């Protein structure tokens, strides 16, 4: 594929709002996970809750969209000057020439969960509940397109935890076929009871902050977050980091358990390398999906070893950010891009004793790095896999 410039980006996670806060936490290995005190949830688990979401000011003309997920989206639009970059792009290309491709797993379903508690005696939902603008999966792209006043093609990819990695592919294809000249890509997912109690019911949440690739890892830490990127052709925009390749595949194995040998993950990583026209030895860092579930990490390690051997430095940043589900792909794409730009290979957090069965070069301490190409992996329920490749400067 033709490389595309990441000409603007914004990020909000439990580590903080904006690039600076997230890079600082990455450097200091400061985790944003804390014991779950979200809403009325009573579960013995750690979560990555974003501070300040309830204080976000929503535009008056988009009041029906008011919900935690769109508030977090607005929070990220307000960070890192993203709205201004998007506005400048709109002036340059025209509102109808910029597409919106976003990922989410649950959008604003929290609104529906709360509305179900307020049903009347006949079981009807309250009249101030706005399904289309909050719960519906598309509400995220609909909100962002309205907030940025963009009228190009818009869609939400909802493929569980691979959602906001996959959107880079949708955007690249739309730009390659001339459907749009630039794209807003990214993802937003927010804490809700469906995912907290749902993952708990599957026995997948840890009672401690998650420990990716640790021998004693015992589950994930759910979090929330948002990340946006403005993608433009490299001929049209200056940027230090470019999207070089996208690989997508399906496990065809099980709804909620990854393929044990990481066959689907392997295909996605190889697909990304092929689409970038690169060999595996050019990759200097891999940001792992690394959820800290027993099965994800062992299947991913097998796939990494198959593609890269045992030499490529890799880490999961989910010990810092938690697992932001449908937003994880875009968040981790940016963390990988920041690592390239800042010249260091970030270690994860909370991992103490590496699982000897996972034979990869997992970073227990950050290293100064000269990597010029980084991969970011995202895998999800339903066997959805996506690997992204980013590169520094001109190849």
């Amino acid at each position: 594929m033709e490389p595309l410039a990441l000409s603007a980006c914004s990020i909000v996670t439990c580590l903080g709002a904006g690039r600076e806060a997230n890079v600082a936490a990455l450097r200091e290995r400061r985790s944003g996970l804390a014991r779950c005190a979200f809403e009325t949830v009573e579960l013995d688990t750690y979560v990555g809750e974003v501070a300040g979401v309830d204080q976000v000011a929503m535009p008056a003309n988009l009041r029906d969209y008011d919900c935690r997920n769109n508030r977090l989206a607005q929070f990220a639009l307000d960070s890192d000057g993203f709205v201004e970059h998007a506005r400048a792009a709109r002036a340059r290309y025209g509102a109808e020439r910029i597409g919106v491709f976003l990922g989410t797993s649950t959008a604003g379903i929290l609104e529906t969960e709360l509305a179900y508690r307020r049903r009347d005696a006949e079981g009807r939902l309250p009249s101030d509940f706005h399904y289309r603008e909050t719960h519906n999966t598309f509400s995220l792209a609909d909100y962002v397109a309205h907030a940025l006043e963009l009228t190009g093609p818009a869609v939400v990819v909802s493929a569980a935890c691979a959602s906001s990695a996959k959107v880079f592919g949708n955007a690249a294809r739309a730009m390659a076929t001339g459907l749009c000249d630039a794209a807003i890509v990214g993802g937003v997912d927010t804490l809700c009871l469906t995912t907290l109690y749902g993952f708990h019911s599957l026995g997948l949440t840890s009672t401690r902050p998650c420990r990716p690739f640790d021998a004693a890892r015992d589950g994930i830490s759910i979090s929330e977050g948002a990340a946006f990127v403005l993608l433009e052709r490299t001929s049209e925009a200056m940027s230090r980091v470019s999207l070089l390749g996208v690989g997508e595949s399906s496990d065809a194995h099980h709804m909620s358990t990854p393929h044990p040998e990481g066959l689907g993950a392997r295909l996605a990583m190889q697909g990304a390398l092929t689409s970038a026209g690169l060999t595996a030895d050019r990759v200097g860092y891999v940001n792992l999906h690394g959820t800290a579930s027993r099965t994800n990490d062992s299947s991913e390690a097998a796939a990494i070893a198959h593609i890269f051997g045992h030499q490529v430095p890799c880490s999961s940043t989910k010990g810092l950010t938690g697992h932001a589900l449908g937003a994880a792909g875009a968040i981790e794409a940016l963390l990988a891009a920041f690592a390239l730009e800042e010249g260091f290979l970030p270690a994860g957090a909370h991992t103490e004793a590496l699982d000897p069965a996972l034979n990869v070069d997992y970073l227990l301490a950050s290293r100064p790095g000269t990597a010029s190409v980084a991969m970011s992996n995202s895998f999800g329920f339903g066997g959805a896999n996506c690997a992204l490749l980013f590169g520094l400067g001109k190849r």
Partner: protein
Amino acid sequence: MMKAFIEGIGLLGPGLPGWSTSRSILAGAKPHTAEPMTIPTSDWLPPAERRRTGVSVRLALATGREACEHAQRDPRSLATVFTSSGGDGDNQHVICESLATAAREVSPTRFHNSVHNAPAGYWGVATGAMASSTSLCAFDWSFGAGLIEALTWIACERQPMLLMAYDAPYPEPMRAVRAISFPFGMALMLAPERSARTITQLAVDLEPSSRTTAAGLPEGLKQLHDAIPAARSLPLLCALAREQRAEVPVDYLDGRQLRATVTPP
């Protein structure tokens, strides 16, 4: 303009029990009656998995299979696009209802089936297809969004691919805020090149909205078109059934529409 060649079609909706049996209705030669429909569970899935599937999954599997068989393509080798206006309302209802109780017991199966890409997951288990697959949502315009994604994918990858668009009805009280009362699913087997399998060429353009997309549909089908987002594929399906060159509008985001041009060989 985006272009592909249609090789196979799948369909399942009220009074439309499959593409081959519904063609004369779509062509306007036989009247449409909205009979109650049965959605088969797929014997492509192991029995344990089969029992767990909801309406969306069954719609996607049945229509996708019909389109593959129509085109005589092996689903195992195919990339896929799944598109739906909002996922599985039944699951969402049961989960939200239990989360509103003190016990908050969520069934693990219901939870993993609640993801928007559950049909893609079951399709993979059923067919063994490991190629690229995506699962989209664009509210009422999800069919148009799926069509765009399928055609841009084909333009870039130059490989055949299967598009499945479907919607399942919502139970009360959600039906009051999302009035989808009937299931509807359709599938298109699309290829980058003309071949012996080609039924028709399909070209799609994005343009400002100018026409009422349901105009010209046979009576009864117009109601389906307006009642179920996935049934916004009906103008295209009717044009395909008539087997004549035609230009039909397909609903897309507010203020815009797609112009689909079908050109049989």
